[in-house]
Structures are given as structure tokens and as C-alpha cells.
């Protein structure tokens, strides 16, 4: 168990190292002079040069890299070029917003995917199955931004049921917060639910053909109990793994969804940081996203081994 954890943690660190190299090199070849970005249109040459020196922009790149990583390791993500805010506090501010969107999207996705997957697997070949399959197919092909715009058009502009965009912090008003975030969560969740439905269906079909399902029926369980009590739990394991692998793509979806619905989360922070050449923020946001993806996958592996008693946590690779 311990060796498994250590091995995986070591792997994570190596990957993070590579992520940091990617992020650093990306940002350092981005066109745009950070000093000018900070001082803006009315800057003078002297103040620009002074600031460049001060920010270490005149140091060799390798030095800059190590200085940056060194700070990162101490939890110092640097300061925003825009307003000198600590990047870490910016992240701390934005992460809960994106987390709320993520949680709501996953909730919606699961609420749709479980019944849809179960129905299509247990009623294989029926109209239900075809509709669920069709839903899964179209959902997977629906770009979140297009679905988002469609939802805005239907439910906000035409019907007026929802606000077309915006965000209310959940700490201020829970109901309103959920209400504002429902459309974006649906826009993201539908695609996810389509993926999940697809995976769950095939996974369930496999499990439903297994001997212990027959045992379940033989001992007098009703279909519902067999499906939800036995089949679902077993078939959800591979779904969890695959959806963890989808997490990176999901985060990518939050970026554009936040942009469309004007949700001030991590994604919008990232887009703004690219637009305003706010490098520390950009670096911080990308590093965090990669870290989240890596951590989620790690935790999924661990969770998987807990949920499936057959898997022993040994040093073996995936």
C-alpha cells in the first residue's frame, strides 16, 4: 500500500515537473512585455526599465525558472501584473466558484447518466435504449459553448426563466447562486452525462451478463435491487476511472463555459490572464489545473482500489 502511494506520488512529481517546464516556457515565449503590461499606456522608459530589473525579467531564463519554481514550492505563485494581488489569493477566490460549477455539472451529469445508462442497458434494444444512445451520441458531439449559447437563447432570452449570465456567490444566497449556475452546469453536465451514459451502458451490459447477477435474481431480488444494489456498483468502477481521465477535458470545458456565462471562475481568470498577458496568473491557473487533473487521477486510483476489494494496492503500474 505504502509503496504504491509512494510510487504514484513520485510519478506525480515527475509529471508536475514537466508541467512546470511547459508552463514556464509557454509564458516566457509569449509576446508582450510584462513591465509594459503593468505600467500600461502611460509608462515611461525609465520606469519600465526599473520594473523589468525589479521583476528579474533581465535575468537568464534558467535563473528565472528556478526562482519561479522555488517560489512555487513555498506556495508563492507570485503577484498579478494587473493589480499586484497575490496569485494564490486570486486562485483561492476563483477555485470555489469553478468547484461549484464542477460539482453541479457532475451532479447533473450523474443524475442524467445513471438512469439513462441503466435504462439503456436493462432495456437493451428498445426505443428507450435507442433514445439513450442517441442522447449519448449527440451529447458527446455537442460543444459546450454551443449548448451554452443554445440554453441561453432558449431559457434566458426566449423564455426568460434564467439569467443569461452572471454569478452570485453561494455564501450570499444559496438559491440564487444555484439558479445562476444551473444553465452553465447543464451546458457542461450534458456532455459529461453523455460520456458517462455511454460508458455506463457498456459497463453495465457486461456486468449484467455476469453470474452473480443471476445469483441475485435467484435469491429473489427484484430487478431494481439487482441493478442498483449489485450491477451498478460494479459497473460504476470503470466509469469512475474513465471519467477521471475525462477530467482534463472537463476542465477545458469550464474555461469556455465560464467565458460564455461570464462566471468569474478559474477559467475566466485564465482567459483574462492570457488576454492581459498577466503571466503570473496564467502560470498559476494552468499549474493549478494540471495539479487538479493529476491529483484527481491519483485519488481515483486510490478510491478505485478501496471500492474494489479485489484490487490490492501494490507497486504495480496501471
Amino acid at each position: 500500500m505504502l509503496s504504491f502511494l509512494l510510487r504514484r506520488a513520485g510519478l506525480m512529481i515527475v509529471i508536475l515537473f514537466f508541467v512546470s517546464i511547459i508552463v514556464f516556457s509557454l509564458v516566457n515565449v509569449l509576446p508582450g512585455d510584462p513591465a509594459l503590461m503593468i505600467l500600461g499606456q502611460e509608462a515611461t522608459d525609465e520606469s519600465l526599465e526599473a520594473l523589468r530589473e525589479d521583476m528579474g525579467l533581465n535575468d537568464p531564463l534558467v535563473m528565472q525558472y528556478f526562482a519561479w519554481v522555488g517560489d512555487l514550492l513555498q506556495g508563492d505563485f507570485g503577484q498579478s501584473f494587473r493589480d499586484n494581488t497575490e496569485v494564490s489569493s486570486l486562485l483561492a477566490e476563483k477555485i470555489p466558484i469553478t468547484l461549484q460549477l464542477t460539482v453541479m455539472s457532475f451532479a447533473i451529469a450523474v443524475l442524467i447518466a445513471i438512469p439513462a445508462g441503466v435504462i439503456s442497458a436493462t432495456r437493451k434494444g428498445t426505443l428507450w435504449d435507442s433514445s439513450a444512445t442517441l442522447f449519448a451520441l449527440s451529447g458527446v458531439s455537442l460543444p459546450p459553448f454551443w449548448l451554452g449559447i443554445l440554453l441561453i437563447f432558449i431559457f434566458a432570452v426566449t423564455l426568460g426563466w434564467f439569467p443569461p449570465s452572471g454569478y452570485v456567490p453561494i455564501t450570499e444566497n444559496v438559491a440564487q447562486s444555484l439558479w445562476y449556475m444551473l444553465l452553465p452546469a447543464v451546458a457542461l453536465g450534458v456532455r459529461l452525462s453523455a460520456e458517462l451514459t455511454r460508458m455506463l451502458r457498456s459497463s453495465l451490459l457486461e456486468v449484467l451478463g455476469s453470474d452473480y447477477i443471476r445469483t441475485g435474481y435467484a435469491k429473489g431480488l427484484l430487478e431494481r435491487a439487482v441493478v442498483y444494489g449489485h450491477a451498478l456498483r460494479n459497473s460504476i468502477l470503470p466509469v469512475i476511472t474513465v471519467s477521471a481521465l475525462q477530467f482534463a477535458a472537463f476542465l477545458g470545458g469550464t474555461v469556455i463555459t465560464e467565458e460564455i456565462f461570464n462566471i468569474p471562475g478559474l477559467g475566466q481568470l485564465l482567459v483574462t490572464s492570457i488576454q492581459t498577458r498577466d503571466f503570473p496568473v496564467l502560470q498559476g491557473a494552468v499549474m493549478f489545473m494540471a495539479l487538479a487533473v493529476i491529483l484527481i487521477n491519483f485519488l481515483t486510483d486510490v478510491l478505485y482500489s478501496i471500492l474494489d476489494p479485489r484490487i490490492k494496492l501494490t507497486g504495480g503500474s496501471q
Partner: protein
Amino acid sequence: MDDRMYSKKLLTTLLLTLLIVLAACGGGGQDSESAGGEDEAEDLTNNDAEDTLVVGLDDDPPLLDPHLSTAQVESQIFKANYETLINVDENLDPIPGLAKDWDVSEDGLTYTFYLQEGVTFHDGADFNAEAVKYNFERILDEDLGSPNASDLRLIEEMSVEDEYTFVVELEETFAPFLSGLSHRAGQIVSPKAAEDEEIDLSNEPVGTGPFQFVDRTAQSHLEFERFDDYWGESPDYKYLEYHAFSNEDTRITNLVSGDLDIVNRIAHKDIEQLEENPEINMSEEDGIGFQGLMLNTDREPFDNQKVRQAMNYAVDRDAITEVVFHNGAEPAVSPFAPSSWANNPDLEVPDREVEKAQELLEESGVEDLSFTLTVSPSPAEQQLSEMLKSMLDDVGFEVEIEQVEFGAILDRMYEGDYDVARLGWSGRVDPDGNAYSWFHTDETYNFTGSSNEQLDELLVDARTTVDQNERQEMYRQAAEILWDEAPYIFLYHENDYKPMKDNVQGFNHVPDGLIRPADLTLE
């Protein structure tokens, strides 16, 4: 076997704890931001809706230190908690601010300011001549690197005559000096707070204004509260908030159906919609800035004057103001808005003259007329650039549009790495602010690389002359030279629109576009 069971349970517990802690941290972070009670459920704000005015901004103001500020949107905030020595009225004429009166010597070199008495800063410090002196010194301090120092650079000497009298000696006459004091250079920050190492004025401003700073959520919103010891008339409402919505549609939605009371900027495509809305009052005022195309005269084909002139005739300014701005802009031919005293009424907006433009191009003898038009990626900019491309391609140019973020455009300007850029100016109260640094040889914003001795002379003379009639004549001549020289294609003067809920009263639309929140009342 039991060990394994145990360790699994332990691990599960650990993971769950981790998740909960993470969630709690997230939640905790948010809690601390929204300190201020959550009793009111109905709007964006934490504060009592009846007693709160919410301003919608088009961008989050980055730096709240007026002496370091460069962004236009920051000036909106400064009207809440800072005051300037001099103010301007609706006609842009100077009126008292923190200086209740002032004298200018005959030669225009000595300014004596008689300060408002009984003014205190939000941190309790007294406002007096020493404070003004401290502020001027702070701006001029090279260590601070204030981008606004140029407004004060001509100060030779300043002295504190008595507690409320402050005297400034200039090296030479500088006509825009007073108007500069109505802007960032005249904002007075608390010397006590500025000296305090623990206070970061960029994030927690301390001034003398009618509202004092309460809290800020970076890149989201700012909260202010009525300053009870304000020397002037106390504002009508207690809480003031500024919420940033960079998305223009969101901003309007939040005004129409949400919680914003007034908005500083709108997309012109929404003008009709807002004017038709019975619950929205729209105030319209001529702007003081100018917008157009900056031509790189160091590069082909714009090193050729005839090519530049051809552009002046190739563009259809009326179509632009109509299609892109829904008639919410005036066609421009000079840096001075039609409403400005510096405007030259003899310069008329020409019709689009395709043939004339083609003739000019032919005369120029330039064959390669291809260039890249660099614009920022906003919807209106995109629409405008597409129109320009269509119009310019028509007469023989070959335009390629490139969308670059505003910051990156600036970057290229400084490096001279561009052909044509869509860059304009929000405008200054004094016409000097629209002309000198933009069109004088080698000045800060003269990215065009153009140089005209006669123009330079006029612009210098105009800023060192006190008499407005003389200055007016100079600016009129300057405008004619600019039109002929054409380093910059003036396209339009954007009108300033301020839509507000119909219960918001008392709005004075000053052409500088700044909302003065203390004037507003809520019905």
C-alpha cells in the same frame, strides 16, 4: 487480513477528510470575502438594497492608487473616495474641489490654492497644505514611478503659505496645469496612510471623498460606505458598490433585470434597446476623446503622405457611426470633439470619396498597398475592422485584420512593430491632453513616428499660452495640419452613454464620463 481492512478504512477516512478540508478551505475563502452580512437575499450585494447604489463597470480597476493609476476605469472609483484639488463642471470648466479657490499670476507661473477647511481623511488625518505638498512630492518621487508625474513636472517650487494656503511656482507657463489637477495628479491621498508600511494604497485607498473604502474582491467588486465625517454634503445613501462586468451583454442584463443602478459604459448596439426600456433612463453626452487608426509612418506604404491621405477619403465615417455605433458617435476629423472649444468648425467631415482616394493612391506611385490592421478582439472592434477592411480594400488596399489583446497592441506600439493599429484616446479635459503627447514629435503616444515642425511649434505654443482664444486658433491650425499630414486617421468621437435605473436621480453628465456617486440620489 484485518490489517488490510483497517488500513483501507483509514485511507478512506483520510481521503474524505482531505476532501472536506479542501471544500472547507474553498468555502472559507469565500466567507471571508463577503463579510458584510447576508440578510438581503434579493440582490448581488451584501448591503441593504434600499440604501445601496451599485455601479456597473466595464472592467475591474486594477490599481486603486490614483498616483499610480493608468486605467480609465480606475478614475470611476476615485470619484467615490478621493477628491481632486480642482473639479470640472458639465462644460469642463474648473470649479472648486479640495481647493475652494485659487489665483493664477499674470505670467501664469504662480498658482495659489486656498484650501477647503475642516476636511479629514478617512483615517482621521487632517487635510491641509502640508498634505497637498506631500501628495505632489509623492507623485514627483521617482521611486514611486508615477505615470502621472508629467502633469506636475514643470513645478519649480512649492510652498506652504499657511495651513490652508498652498503656492506652486512653475518653470514656464503650462496652460493645462489646472486641468491636470482635476485628474489623477490632483487626487489627494492620506499622507498618513501613504507613509504606513502596512497599508497598500493600491488595494485599500484612503482619501477624503464622500465614501470610504470597505472591501475589495479582486477582479469582481468593490464596496464603499458613506464617510460620516465628510466635509461636504452627505450622500443620499449609505452603501456604494462597484461591480465589474467585462462582458457588455452581462453588464446590460444586470442593469435591466439585475441589481445594477447605473453603468459606466455600454455597447452601442444596445442603445435602442435601452432607450426603449421605460425603466431605464439614458443620459447621453458628447465624449472628449477621439478614435481612429494609427498609421506607422516609418513603414511602407504609410511613409507616403498620399497613401495616408487616401485613407482619409476611403473610409465612410457616416456608415461606421451608423452601423457600428448606432449613431452613438460623431464622425471625427481631428483629435478635438465637436463640443470642445478647440474644435475647428472649418474642417468638415468629408463624404467617402472612392475616386479621390484612388487618385491619391495612383499619385503616390506606391504599388504594394497591403498592410495588417491590428485591433483588439471586442465585438465592436471586430465589426469596425471588418467594415474598414471592406472600405479600404475597395479603393485598392489589401487589409489583413489581426486581433490582438489590448495589452499586446500597446506592446507593439512601443516597439513600433505594427502597420496600422486601432488605438484611440479617452480624452482629457484640456485639449492639450488630446494633442501634445499624441502628435508632437517623439512624444509618449506618438507611435506614428510622424514629425512636423510647424505642428510641434503650435502644440508647444498652445500649452504655454494662457489665453484661450489664442490657444483655440493654434489648435485649429494644428487640426488642419494633422488632417493634411494624416499620420492618424480620425474616425469618430464616441458619445458617452450612462444608462441608469429610473429611480436614480441627480446625475450630472460631465463629458469626462466619470460618475460622481455623491451627486446621485435613490428614489
